[in-house]
């Protein structure tokens, strides 16, 4: 015996071969590979083993593989047969199949698009590895008497205090944003830059794809997204390049340290340029860094694992007391945590930089998507139940040869599953095709994901919808009485008809409800956008000013902005198409005008809004005065100490007394006089009532008397004017000219006031558009269903119509019969829809301070619309049925 003989082929491969190979081929195959192995092993055992594996693998072919199970399962055989029969039936009844597949496909496409939008909204920042341990801090100051401040931004000293006092804190990262000019020389752009703590990328799971991944946020480092790297550096390698950023009066050269992919759509951190806030003094004044009552960044806290939120929160009062005990009484300053994943859809907390959506709209849309899908399912259910008369004989024969009820149910279910599967495929295709339109119309940016998970979800949906739609017809069919079928005559009990009619009523009800609902929404939106807000908004243009370099303090910056505004105004006034020029600190369409608070003479806390303007604000916007006079541009005293208030403020401060000539009821205010009262104009959104407003040219007398102050919108002045020119492009050209010769280094930002106002109702407009799309789709689906039913009814009534015609009925009478079939159901649906729509739409409208009434007109329109629609759908088949030669109909049989 040679030593070589001891080397045997690899066991694993042999096992594998024995496992898969058909027994009749096993011996010869094994023999041949063994022989080859024995021959090769003489040269090199390693190579022989490798080749043995290879050979075994090559034998792994379909013709050699055993059948997995030779069991002749009846269930599997029957299922295969069922699908075959289903395909034949569907092929045979083409109209029906097209209507069914069509409506389910449209419903499915709508459902998929809406559910993707909903999914994006509810999945905000749920992808972070430590997401369940990240919280944002909030603070609530409550000094009684309505002097309450609630915010989710936080003071700067909070982070170090938390780190010192709370051992459960693993990391803290601050997130803040600011607008800075980026670039050099002529081409400086105003960019929103995120200032974050160095550990930002450790706390949040954002991927770094290029550059310094371990420590991307050094003192002078800037991180860019891919699209911004492209914007600034084109195809050049961005990492290592330099970007100059103007921070206040200082120019800082930042070094591009790393690149991140563009932020996903479902994160609240929409950043394109990220720098470290390590050098605090670059971004925040020395005072702000110490002040507890000055808020800036959002503070995100990563707690250690297995730490309860309550446990940490319970330590806050003691901590606050130790740092703020001298300034406040206990309970006046409450600090808390809000889970990261909760922020996006929780409007109970005030919004900071992190965007907050309205959860109600998400629920509304989810419901609409589901309703549309349900309507499509109802189509299938009613149509195939109606078809059951035709299928009755088939069921009879099957029962005679011994089909079990369970088997029959399964057969009809496979039919509905097959049809749903087809429809889903078509629906996904449709969703793909409609995605750009949907995104454009609804102002969303969703994508259709293609991965194993979503395919599995689609599979589940197919199964679920297939069973849901098919279960009722399947039961109806399999319950048919054998004798009744074979004997002929009526099949299916009375109950079937009632349930079918109820489903049709329900479907029509949904359609009418969606039509009236979106009509009401549309009306309300039109009302919001066209209602008289109390000032001129058509063709009003505004452009942002910038403070001069080196102006310190917010009011100095505002003043220097007004000085710049004067320069621009002087230049613009030379153009004939520019009229009603003026300047103001806040412009309409930006929420959150400066809010101020003070204690009045009776020690009552009062709040009002302030807007600083030039003397032309009232006249420029055409605001009406109810008492006193407007600012006079020629009076020096008006520039210093005259103020205007609105009607709400007059009532708030003075009740029924005449305020003209009086002062604001506070002790500390500087020298000032109220010279006039304006009619209330709606400077905020129409969601809220008009609040007290003070208009002044000089900030000093007012700021002296207040105890607190909130800027929620950018307070740097804007220049506004009415544009009388023809084309919109004209404005742009004009402004670019003037701007380039005045402020060549700053970016020109301008907009139309009415465009800004539209943006304020963006959420509503989006929901309205999506609801509108869903309405059109639901109308389509309902028409499909009605069409199918009409064909069915016409077919079953062929003889009745024939006899009636023979007896002298006119085509109108015949048409009448058919219309009456569905007319009653439509009427019922209409009547039921009125209270439901009225209730639900009033709920929605209660969100608005200014709203329309749900009038009778809406219902009349939607009722008429649906009736006309029904006539249109029915008409063709009804006319055809009524014109058919009765001989043809009666000759059958």
């Amino acid at each position: 015996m040679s030593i070589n003989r001891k080397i045997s082929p690899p066991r694993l491969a042999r096992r594998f071969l024995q496992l898969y190979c058909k027994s009749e081929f096993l011996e010869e195959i094994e023999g041949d590979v063994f022989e080859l192995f024995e021959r090769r092993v003489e040269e090199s055992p390693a190579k022989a083993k490798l080749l043995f594996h290879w050979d075994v693998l090559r034998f792994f072919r379909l013709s050699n593989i055993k059948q997995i199970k030779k069991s002749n399962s009846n269930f599997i055989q029957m299922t295969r047969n069922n699908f075959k029969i289903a395909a034949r039936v569907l092929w045979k009844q083409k109209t029906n199949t097209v209507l069914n597949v069509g409506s389910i496909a449209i419903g499915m496409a709508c459902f998929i698009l809406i559910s993707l939008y909903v999914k994006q909204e509810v999945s905000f920042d749920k992808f972070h590895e430590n997401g369940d341990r990240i919280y944002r801090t909030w603070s609530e100051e409550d000094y009684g008497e309505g002097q309450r401040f609630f915010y989710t931004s936080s003071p700067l000293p909070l982070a170090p205090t938390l780190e010192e006092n709370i051992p459960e804190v693993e990391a803290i990262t601050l997130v803040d944003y600011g607008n800075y000019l980026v670039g050099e020389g002529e081409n400086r752009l105003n960019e929103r830059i995120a200032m974050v703590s160095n550990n930002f990328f450790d706390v949040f799971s954002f991927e770094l794809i290029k550059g310094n991944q371990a420590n991307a946020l050094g003192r002078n480092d800037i991180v860019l997204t891919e699209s911004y790297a492209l914007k600034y550096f084109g195809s050049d390698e961005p990492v290592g390049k330099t970007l100059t950023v103007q921070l206040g009066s200082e120019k800082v050269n930042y070094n591009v340290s790393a690149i991140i992919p563009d932020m996903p759509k479902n994160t609240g951190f929409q950043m394109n340029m990220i720098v470290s806030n390590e050098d605090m003094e670059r971004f925040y004044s020395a005072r702000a860094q110490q002040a507890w009552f000055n808020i800036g960044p959002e503070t995100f806290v990563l707690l250690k694992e297995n730490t309860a939120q309550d446990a940490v929160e319970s330590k806050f009062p003691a901590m606050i007391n130790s740092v703020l005990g001298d300034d406040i009484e206990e309970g006046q300053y409450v600090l808390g945590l809000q889970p990261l994943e909760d922020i996006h859809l929780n409007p109970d907390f005030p919004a900071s930089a992190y965007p907050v959506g309205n959860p109600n709209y998400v629920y509304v849309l989810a419901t609409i998507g589901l309703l549309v899908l349900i309507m499509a399912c109802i189509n299938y259910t009613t149509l195939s139940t109606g078809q059951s008369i035709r299928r009755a004989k088939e069921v009879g024969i099957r029962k005679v040869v011994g089909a079990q009820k369970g088997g029959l149910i399964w057969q009809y279910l496979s039919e509905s599953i097959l049809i749903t599967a087809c429809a889903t495929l078509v629906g996904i295709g449709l969703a793909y095709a409609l995605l750009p339109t949907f995104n454009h119309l609804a102002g969303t940016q969703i994508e259709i994901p293609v991965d194993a998970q979503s395919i599995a979800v689609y599979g589940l949906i197919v199964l679920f919808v297939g069973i849901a739609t098919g279960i009722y017809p399947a039961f109806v069919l399999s319950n048919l009485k054998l004798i009744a079928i074979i004997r002929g005559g009526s099949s299916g009990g009375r109950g079937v008809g009632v349930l079918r009619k109820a489903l049709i009523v329900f479907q029509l009800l949904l359609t009418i409800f969606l039509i009236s609902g979106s009509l009401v929404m549309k009306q309300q939106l039109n009302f919001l956008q066209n209602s008289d807000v109390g000032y001129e908004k058509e063709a009003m243009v505004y452009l942002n000013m910038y403070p001069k370099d080196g102006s310190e303090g917010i009011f100095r910056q505002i003043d220097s902005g007004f000085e710049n505004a004067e320069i621009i105004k002087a230049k613009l006034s030379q153009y004939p198409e520019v009229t009603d020029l003026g300047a103001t600190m806040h412009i309409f369409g930006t929420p959150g005008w400066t809010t101020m608070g003070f204690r009045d003479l009776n020690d009552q806390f009062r709040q009002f809004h302030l807007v600083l303007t030039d003397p032309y604000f009232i006249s420029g916007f055409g605001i009406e005065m109810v008492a006193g006079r407007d600012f006079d541009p020629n009076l020096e005293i008006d520039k210093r100490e005259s103020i205007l208030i609105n009607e709400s403020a007059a009532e708030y401060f003075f009740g029924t007394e005449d305020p003209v000539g009086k002062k604001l009821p506070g002790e500390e205010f500087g020298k000032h006089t109220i010279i006039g009262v304006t009619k209330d104009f709606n400077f905020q959104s129409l969601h809220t009532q008009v609040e007290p407003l003070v208009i002044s040219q000089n900030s000093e007398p007012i700021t002296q008397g207040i105890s607190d102050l909130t800027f929620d919108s950018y307070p740097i002045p804007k220049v506004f004017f009415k544009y009388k020119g023809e084309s919109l492009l004209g404005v742009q050209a004009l402004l670019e000219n003037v701007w380039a010769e005045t402020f060549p280094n700053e970016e020109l930002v301008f907009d139309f006031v009415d465009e800004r106002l539209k943006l304020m109702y963006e959420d509503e407009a989006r929901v309205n558009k999506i609801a509108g799309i869903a309405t059109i789709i639901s109308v389509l689906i309902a028409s499909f269903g009605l069409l199918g039913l009409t064909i069915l009814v016409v077919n079953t009534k062929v003889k009745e119509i024939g006899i009636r015609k023979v007896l002298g009925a006119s085509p109108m009478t015949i048409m009448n019969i058919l219309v009456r079939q569905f007319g009653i159901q439509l009427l019922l649906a209409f009547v039921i829809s009125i209270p439901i729509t009225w209730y639900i739409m009033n709920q929605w409208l209660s969100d608005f301070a200014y709203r329309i009434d749900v009038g009778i007109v809406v219902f009349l329109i939607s009722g008429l619309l649906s009736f006309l629609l029904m006539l249109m759908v029915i008409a063709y088949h009804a006319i055809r049925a009524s014109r058919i030669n009765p001989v043809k109909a009666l000759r059958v049989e």
Partner: protein
Amino acid sequence: MKGTYLGEFEELVLLTVGALYPEAYGVAIMDDIKSETGRSVNISAIHSAMRRLEDKGFVKSFMGGATNERGGRRKRYFELTSYGKKALDDAQSMRAKLYNRIPDISFGQS
């Protein structure tokens, strides 16, 4: 069943089976093809080709006796059937017919 068309590789295998008679089995066929044409073929390809040929009725097969080699496993021997022989003859004659129709002109120099 598939058609009785004889593919190029099948023809080659069939010829080898005829030539190796009575010792035609998997590995021997593979070796012979390698030595005669220089084509290295995987053993699994031979097996599938043989199975196709048998399905078409060109060859028949039987199991040989047990030996000491191959771990004691038997060989499956293949033989040409008369139908297979006829298929080879047909292929041969068709080829000869076409070949003879090539006009007698000299190639390589124009």
